[in-house]
Structures are given as C-alpha cells and as structure tokens.
C-alpha cells in the first residue's frame, strides 16, 4: 500500500446538508446545528465560535483540530452542557441537550482529580452520585476495577493523586469517565500537558480503550499527528470566530502507529491548510 486512497477531503463543509431533528438525525449519536457561543467581555461581545454543524455516528472518533484560542474548548464545554449556547441546538440521539447529560463523559486537559481521594475513590466518585444510584454496590465495584484495568493502573488503587505522574493522573481521569459507560466521550486536549513519549503511550492506550469499549469520541487537539493517529475524521477549525473550516476522512485501518508513513501526504495537506489558515498572508 503506497497510495493513500483512503484519505479524501471534502473541500466545502458548508455543502453538508443541514440536519434536522428528524428520524435521520436520530441515527446520529450527536448532532450539532448552527451552534454559536458569545462571551461578554469588557471589550464587548466576543464570538468564540459560530455556525458549527457537526454529526457524529456511534463508534466514530472525530478529532477537532485547531490553533489554540480558536474556540475548541468552548465548543466542547457547550456540547457537554456546562455552558449554554447563544444559538443553535445539540441533540444526543435525537434528544435536545442543554444541561450536562450523564451519558456524556468529559476529560479535561488537566486531570482534575480530587486530591483527598485515592485513585479508586476518584473513579468511584462519578458512580456514587444520585444520578447513578441505580447501580448496585457490586456493580460499582466491578465497573471501577474494569476501568482501572483498562487504563493499566492495577496496583495503584490506593495511591493519592500527588503520588501519580501526569500520565497516570490523566489515565485516572479517563477511567473515571469510562466507568460511567458514556455513550459519548469528549476529550479536551487530554495529553497536551504530557511529554512526547508519555503522550504516545497515552495515545496507544486511548486507542485500545476506544476499541475495547466501542466508544464514540470527540477529541479536541492541536496536534496534527494525534488527530491522524486516532481519528476517523479530522475537522479543522478556523478562528475569530471559530468555524469548522474543512473536513478529512481518514479511513486507514487502526492502529496506525506502525504505518505512519502512509499518512504523510494527508499530514502535509492538513499542515498546509492549517498554516494558510493561521496566517494567510505569509
């Protein structure tokens, strides 16, 4: 395989038909329509992103790529229901979303572990809330141990967050989300605070976790390689305000770590697009 027939691009994302909340969009796990978020600042109204249309199938891994400050985190927080949109709508399997949904898991750039709880207790935290009260004790326990083993943290159940490395802390955060068995996993630059080698390790681990759990993932990143290694689709975001500028489908089978050279052409294309996007005149 020397060619890359797998990768093709849609030059104009605006021609994607606008979905409506009908039966067709119910087949989608996540549908985002015409979403816009404005922040009120001292300088006036600032639009973080606008005109966002997005559809994610169950089992798909979509990577949202963009320069920092282009509104990726804002978009993710809005989809997670942590802040309200100024325009547009979000549907999870056809149901409108505007508050946090228990079936959506969120992992931040920082692990945000509670320092007074052990690894085990941190993961249990998300399962012991009233929201999850239908779970029996034994089910909670088995879910936690399953989550711990899928992020390879056996033996660290009783460790406290300050005893963990950055990568391990991020794995706990991932396990905390996984244990709730979310339909959709939102990851906001989960590995960008880690060193290159740990990051690669974590990307491999995430890929294994995604395949094991058949997760649907929306991964925000500013790392082209991460997007190419993990994504089924790569969305490139422009800024001021943030919009989805272009989309590529990466259909090369995963894992792609051993065959990264097959991605060079696509990588260059995205790179060129990104660099014209951030400074079109230079």
């Amino acid at each position, binding site marked *: 395989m020397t060619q890359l027939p797998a990768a093709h691009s849609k030059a104009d994302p605006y021609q994607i038909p606008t979905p409506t909340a009908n039966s067709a969009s119910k087949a989608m796990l996540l549908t985002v329509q015409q979403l816009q978020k404005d922040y009120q600042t001292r300088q006036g109204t600032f639009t973080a992103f606008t005109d966002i249309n997005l559809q994610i199938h169950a089992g798909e891994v979509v990577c949202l790529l963009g320069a920092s400050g282009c509104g990726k985190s804002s978009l993710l927080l809005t989809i997670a*229901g942590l802040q309200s949109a100024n325009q547009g709508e979000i549907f999870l399997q056809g149901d409108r979303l505007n508050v946090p949904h228990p079936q959506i898991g969120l992992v931040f750039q920082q692990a945000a572990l509670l320092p007074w709880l052990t690894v085990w207790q941190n993961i249990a935290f998300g399962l012991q809330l009233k929201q999850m009260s239908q779970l029996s004790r034994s089910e909670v326990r088995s879910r936690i141990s399953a989550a711990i083993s899928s992020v390879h943290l056996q033996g660290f159940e009783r460790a406290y967050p300050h005893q963990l490395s950055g990568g391990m802390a991020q794995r706990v955060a991932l396990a905390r989300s996984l244990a709730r068995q979310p339909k959709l996993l939102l990851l906001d630059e989960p590995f960008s605070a880690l060193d290159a080698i740990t990051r690669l390790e974590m990307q491999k681990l995430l890929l294994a976790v995604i395949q094991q759990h058949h997760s649907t993932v929306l991964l925000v990143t500013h790392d082209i390689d991460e997007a190419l290694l993990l994504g089924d689709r790569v969305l490139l975001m422009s800024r001021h305000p943030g919009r989805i500028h272009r989309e590529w489908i990466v259909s090369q089978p995963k894992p792609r770590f051993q065959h990264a050279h097959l991605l060079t052409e696509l990588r260059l294309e995205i790179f060129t697009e990104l660099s014209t996007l951030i400074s079109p005149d230079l």
Partner: protein
Amino acid sequence: MAQSLPATAIRPLRVPLPLWGLAIGALVWWIFTTPLWYSDPIRVDFSPERTFVALVQLLSTGAIVPHVIDSLRRVLVGLLAAIAIGVPLGILLGLSRPLDQATSALFQFIRMISPLSWMPIAVMVLGIGDLPVYFLLTIAAVWSLILNTSAGVAAVDRRWLLLSKSLCATQWETISRVIIPAIIPHLLTGVRLAIGIIWIVLVPAEMLGVSAGLGYYILDTRDRLAYSELMAVILIIGTIGYCLDTSLRVAYRRWAHQR
C-alpha cells in the same frame, strides 16, 4: 580552627530556641519576685517558688480539676455553636456573591465590637449562668469561622466544580463531596483562630456570675488573697491554651501532608 568548624558540629549542645525564650521569661519572673531578695509578703507570693508549691497542691488535691472541666466544657459548647453557625453561613456566603457583598459591611462592623462589650446585654437578655458565657464565646469565635470558610469556598479549584457539574452531581452533592472536603484546611485554620479567641474571652466571661471555671477561680483566689494560687491558675490557663493551639496546628499539618 574554630571558624572552619561546620555549623552542625556544635548543634548537639544547643537548647532549642523556644526553650530559651521560656527560660528567659521564667528568669525575669523570678528576678522580680523571688523571696531571696524581696521581703514584701504580697510580692513574694507571686514568685515562681510559691507558685510552684501552690500548683503542686492544686493538682495533687484535684481542687482545680472541676474548674478546668467546666472551662473546657464551655470552650467546647462555644466552639460547636460557632461551627454550627459559622460554617454553613460561610459556605452560603462563599457560594453567593450578592449575599457576600450584602453582608460584608454588617459583619465587619459587628466583628470589630469587642465580644466583652456584649456582656451587659448578654446578662440582661440571658440572665446569669452558663448561657451568657456560651453566647459571648460563640459571638467571639463565629467570625473567624465565617470568614475562613467563605474564603475557602471562594478558593475551591474551579475545575473541580466543573467536573462535579459535568458528572451531573446535585447541588448538595457538590457541596458535601467537593466543597466541604476542599475547604478542610481553611476550616482547621478557622477553628484554630476560634479556639484562640474563645480561650482569651473565656476567662473574663467566666467572671460573669458563674460559680465554677478558671475565670471564676481567678476572682476567687483574688478574694481569698491567695496570690500564689492565682499565679498557678494563670500558668494552667496558659498551658491549656498552648496545648489546644498546638493540637490544632498538628491536625492542620497532618491534613496538609496527606494531600
């Protein structure tokens, strides 16, 4: 060569600095009161020698024990009442900016009134006995708890709140499982300050028509002209206060280390 000796070489001979301070304090006390060169009977009654004898007597007969227990009971009741009022109020103020702003001037105003100025009012309203003492101790201690708690809530990591919200936690779950554990260090600081204030206010408050307690005992020794006993009680008051403060400092450090 003396100057080339490393500093650690002479360490084992050193007395810890805090002990030096105590020793010098005791020495000054002794110099100004000792019967060795003073003959004034009242002055020498305050001397370390006489105080020590009185202290041994107080402790061996157990005469002081009920007074210590009474005082500690009042400290405990005052502290618990101050916690019961101050912590929920502090959490409320920390969570609600408008409420915090609405009450800040009022609270700063009341806080600046010496708790002892409430004494006449306390007696008028609550009569004589334990109740006005509890009231004075509570009102003296509640401010440090309110202020430390609300400062603690304001300093809770925003990411933890965001996390809690993203996990669909209820308001109460966020308070009980994120905010309260997160503010424990602030709470311990507040409790420590509160105990310090309570212990200081306790003695004058116990001069308020109660018939037991360390403050009462001070007045009693004065009336009996038993000055060496008075000094012994002062030593006991200082020691207990020091121990209370130290135990809270240790608790604070334990908690801070654990994280």
